[in-house]
């Protein structure tokens, strides 16, 4: 384990815990942004530059913005007199159980000790060629999905507005 990895991983996990446990939703969203940025850092550590910067562009630049907009639009700064969580202990127990299972699996598996091969040369060109040849079907499906999602989101938002008037 290297020092940069430890710092980034600590930051990521810490901000993720903050994102899930803070009371003020905007603070949660801002911590989530830190998690996203930390993940991008981890991707960079793994020599996946393109995915790392895409992560920042999409998550920090778009998803986080969507989330804070939704928080503001739903006035979700929760009332103080109401607990922020439901049945916390069951949920946390389930999560801890899941984590223990996964951790044991990772520890038991020989894959975990694998050492990385020298960094592969990933050029955007080859990535693009892959997307356009081997993965062209998923790409098309993705385009369709994004279009459908966009239409769906617009329709959901629009119908309600007309209903109001």
């Amino acid at each position, binding site marked *: 384990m290297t020092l940069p990895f430890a710092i980034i991983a600590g930051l*990521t996990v810490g901000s993720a815990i903050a994102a899930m446990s803070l009371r003020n939703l905007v603070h949660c969203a801002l911590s989530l942004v830190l998690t996203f940025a930390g993940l991008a850092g981890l991707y960079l550590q793994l020599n996946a530059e393109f995915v790392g910067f895409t992560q920042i562009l999409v998550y920090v630049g778009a998803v986080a913005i969507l989330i804070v907009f939704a928080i503001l*639009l739903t006035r979700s700064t929760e009332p103080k007199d109401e607990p*922020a969580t439901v049945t916390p202990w069951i949920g*946390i127990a389930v999560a801890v159980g899941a984590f223990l299972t996964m951790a044991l699996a990772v520890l038991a598996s020989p894959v975990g000790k694998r050492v990385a091969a020298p960094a592969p040369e990933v050029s955007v060109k080859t990535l693009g060629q892959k997307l356009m040849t081997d993965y062209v079907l998923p790409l098309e499906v*993705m385009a369709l999905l994004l279009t459908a999602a966009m239409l*769906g989101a617009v329709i959901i938002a629009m119908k309600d507005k007309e209903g109001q008037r």
Partner: protein
Amino acid sequence: MTPLSGYLFVSALLFCIGLAGALTRRNAIMVLIGIELMLNAANLNFIAFWRFSENPETMTGLTFALFSIAIAAAEAAVGLALIITIYRHFRTANVDKVEDMKG
């Protein structure tokens, strides 16, 4: 270089934090944030397994991660649109209080 298990641990932790949040928080947006965290944890796994795989030239993990990011973006857009609609209808974003499906 950090071994694969390090990344897998971080990923598992993130997943479980997201899971715990999604299971326990009342606010629908927080549930969505939890789901986003879980998706991101999966993404980290994709990248880590790609980097430590026998032949990273195929770029399976990378492309999968890219697709996953696209899906997550779409999911966030639709999910948040739904939450806003629910809020406009029920005047709350609290998942417990939204029980009436008839609207």
